């Protein structure tokens, strides 16, 4: 279930530390997306990259010129409200989050190389031409994952084809906090994090009858249990590790209920990839292997129904056994009486 970031006054601060748009969900989300993206390059790459990150402990923020930047930018509440969009632009760097991010080895000036040696700064970060894809290509030798594949998907996405103003990688991803998904994150968390990124901008979808989703029963329940991306990415050519960056427009997206509400749904395979692992952790390999996604009873995805079904079967077996035993006893008694 989606929690309004406004419900907790403290979350306002923490969110600033993470996203340009500033919600706590956003940050969770980013972590998840991160993970997804990282795994896109095959687990091995991501893992080795992550491991490399873990071993090289020297944080980029401790390098000399970064410390100058951090004299101000550590402040959790360093932000302003953009005069055009009315949105809060966060300028704060969370040292902890940065330390755990994939970019943690980089010093500030590795990316922000011009116009920042004095305060007030000559330029604002908005007019920087930071290029994730190019930079990752240049630094491939250092272990930076190649983003060209992602970029091709992204170029087909509605965010590009509809020419959404000022849309870039940074609209969804915060490079200062980006890191592989942490093990043990629940499905609900993954969903909340991922959808938070979308709903941060698409706030119109948080209404009782969200625009374009009139056909969808109980939309808010859906927002809480599946990712937007599960429907809004192409059905074809899916890989299990991550959702595509080709985000589809409403009319091209899946609207068939059974695509999800059926066994072995292709739409949900990515998302439930997590669930399988999680369930295996929780219930053990065998229990998970038995239940899996195959619903014994109906297609409700309701565990209670599973239990009730099991109960009915158990009762039936008991009944048959009792009946058999009774017949056996009756037969024996007749034998002896004879």
């Amino acid at each position, binding site marked *: 279930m989606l929690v309004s970031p406004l419900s907790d*006054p403290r979350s*306002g*601060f923490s969110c*600033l530390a993470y996203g340009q748009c*500033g919600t706590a969900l956003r940050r969770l989300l980013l972590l998840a997306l991160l993970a997804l993206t990282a795994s896109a390059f095959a687990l091995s790459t991501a893992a080795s990259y992550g491991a490399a990150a873990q071993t090289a402990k020297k944080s980029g923020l401790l390098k000399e010129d970064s410390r100058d930047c951090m*004299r*101000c930018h550590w*402040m*959790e*509440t*360093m*932000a*302003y*409200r953009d*005069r055009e969009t009315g949105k*809060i*632009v966060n*300028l*704060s760097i969370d040292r902890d989050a940065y330390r755990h991010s994939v970019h943690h080895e980089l010093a500030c000036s590795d990316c922000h190389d011009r116009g920042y040696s*004095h*305060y*007030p700064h000559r330029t604002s970060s908005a007019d920087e031409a930071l290029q994730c894809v190019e930079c990752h290509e240049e630094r491939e030798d250092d272990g930076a994952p190649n983003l060209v594949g992602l970029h091709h998907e992204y170029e087909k996405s509605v965010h590009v084809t509809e020419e959404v103003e000022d849309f870039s990688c940074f609209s969804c991803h915060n490079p200062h906090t980006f890191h592989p998904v942490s093990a043990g994150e629940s499905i609900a968390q993954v969903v909340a994090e991922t959808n938070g990124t979308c709903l941060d901008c698409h706030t119109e979808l948080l209404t009782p009858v969200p625009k374009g989703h009139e056909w969808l029963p109980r939309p808010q329940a859906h927002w809480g249990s599946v990712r937007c991306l599960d429907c809004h990415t192409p059905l074809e050519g899916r890989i299990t590790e991550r959702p595509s960056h080709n985000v589809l427009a409403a009319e091209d997206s899946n609207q068939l209920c059974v695509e999800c509400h059926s066994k072995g749904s292709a739409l949900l395979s990515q998302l439930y990839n997590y669930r399988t692992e999680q369930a295996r952790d929780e219930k053990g390999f065998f229990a998970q292997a038995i239940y899996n996604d195959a619903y014994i009873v109906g297609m409700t995805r309701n565990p209670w129904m599973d239990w009730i079904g099991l109960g009915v079967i158990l009762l039936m077996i008991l009944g048959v056994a009792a009946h058999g035993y009774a017949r056996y006893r009756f037969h024996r008694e007749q034998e002896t009486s004879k």
Partner: protein
Amino acid sequence: MNIRSLFATKTRRRVAIVLAVLLVPAVLYKVVYPVFFDLYTGVENAPLTYDTRELTEAEFEQLALELTEAKRRERAEAVVTEEDDSFAREVKIDILMNTPSFIEEGGYPHIEYFREAGIREYEGPKTCLECHATIDITHEDGTVETVDTLEDIVNTVHFKFQTAAGGAFSTYGYDGRQVNAEGARKIPVGKINRACGIPGSFSWTGWAALVASRPEHGLDEAAERSPVEADPATVEGISLALNDPGKTGHGDGEGLSDGVVLRSEGCGQCHIGGNYHPATEKMMPVGDVPKEAKEGIDCLICHAGEYDMNQRYVIQDKHGLRWNQDRSMRSALTVGRASNENCLNCHQHNMGGDAYIHNVAAKHLGDKHQRLLHTGAKRGNPFSPQSDAHAAAGIKCTDCHVPEGHKIPRGRKGVDLVASDLPHKEVSCESCHSQTPHNVSEHRALLNGHVARLACETCHIKDLVDNNVVLRDWVHPTWNAEEGIWEPTDVFRSGKPGEGLMYLWFNGNGTFLANALGSNPEGDGSYNPLMEQIARIDNPDVIAAVREKARELKKQYPDIDIDRYVETATDPLSQLSPEMLEKRRKMVADNLKAAMEEGESRIYPFKPFNAMMFEDMNNQGPFGAMILPFDYATYYETGDSRAAVVKAIQDPIVRRMYQEPFKLYMMDEFMAYFGVDGWKTIYPLTDDNKLAPQVEPHWMRQMGTLMVNHGIQREGHDCKACHQPDGLLDYEALGYTPERIAELTSNEIIDEIEP
């Protein structure tokens, strides 16, 4: 019928037993207990009468007309603002006032209600409850509850001045326990019984007093000075009071001379109960406020648009002294929701102070027995359109302090022991302002960044009012010739940062004696206000001012040792023995560390305060001893501070306090929070009515720190106010490391911003 026959059969006996089981406790509770209670505590309850009468139809209509027209005129004047020619403006106002739609809008709706219901006399709560017996309360989660109105009010802090509710305080005892925490033994605490040197008394001994003042300029001049016409009734008042002194009145024949003016004083002036004593009954785990007391509640002081503060003075009848209230129909017809003016009738007294020029209530001191002005401001941060950006913007008190029924939240951060009705309800700047409050300055992001460590108030309350009192000596009073009374001597007053305004880390927790708790999130662990900042005054200007005042006092009190006086006032820890000092150091480190390091601390401004009072040294701890109250009349009239204590502690409540049942009921627990092991019940008065030797004058062992949140100025401090060597913030005392101090006080960045 024979009584015996009632118990003749088994069935009858059973019925009788059942009836007895039901009735006896009820009778005990409703009849016997209140009688016993009044006897035990010495408080008195009697029907409360006020000077009201029924209006005739014609008088009612005349009053209705006057009120409606005055209101309409007020509205019209607010609309017609831009007219340079006063004649033309007057004509326009007149046109507007006679415009049909304008007449229909606004006005006082209760005029019509009263007219229809035939109400021609206001008889207090009784009248209000005719329609408002129950009210709907909307809780924070949106649920609506219907409650009994009177029951709702008598359980508010505005009526009780205390609470024993679990989790109601973010205040910690010096023993490290949160006051009335869940699971602890709950004791009623709040303004009703907390130790505080500002009022000098406490609510029972200082509830209502008539003080015979002797202004040296004489009666006529006093009347001229007064913003209201002096009522000749003053003379009647004197004779009433002097002929029938009541239990706390004056001695025989005392002060009958011509120059005597009776003045009103006491805690009851700001409290909604009209009784002879505060809500004593509510201090007990059982028992209810008597019906008479409930009938004395002043609904109108909070709800009338035209409440007359001139009706708020002490009156005396055969049961004792109590506070009069405005029960006029004029006031009653203007009822509505509480406005800022209503709140400020009482609260400006604490915020801006009585000498604050825009304190409206302080200009309506009473038609007779005029209230004594408290010229030393308690908090020194006024709330009025002239001094506060929010008041100027028309923001209502209840916009931030959002009530639920009659319960009003104080905010979650409570440094002192003032009870709160809704302790968990947020009252903060952030609930309206986002995390990015600054939008104008080029440096707005940098300014917003400061919110991580600084409270908004730290920059946006640049100073307090000048007469903000910091050090008050109750032991050595000074003669105020103009008012004709002896007053406590304000040894030091200032509203300036570094003098009457200080900066401390604060996480929302406080101690039992109102010391802000918090810690520096990036500090070196050296921050220790209870041993440093609030236990010592370093500012040489302040020390010099205190010395000057001590010299002045010495003329009146030759026994004063000036050096010692200055030392104890500015270094109150010098009053502790080395063992006591060591114990204190240990208690701070062992008991308060957790409360200091909890949550997130930010730097807040505080008004520091200390007072010299008489203390019962048998009940002494490392943070102070039990302070003893003063009898206001004796104090103001004679200037004999010891005699005033003698008088006050003869109050039955104080006597009971020094007895075993009270010790067990609450005093042991109270003192444990105070940092004292066990309450010693040795009554501090000798048989010949002298103060016992254990009563000594002392300054409290540290300054109390009162939170200041009002008087918000649009333009805050500039950068250099703090970011320079010797700026407003003492970074070292705030526990910063030397490297960080160097950064914070360097001006390399500041010079770019403020060349």
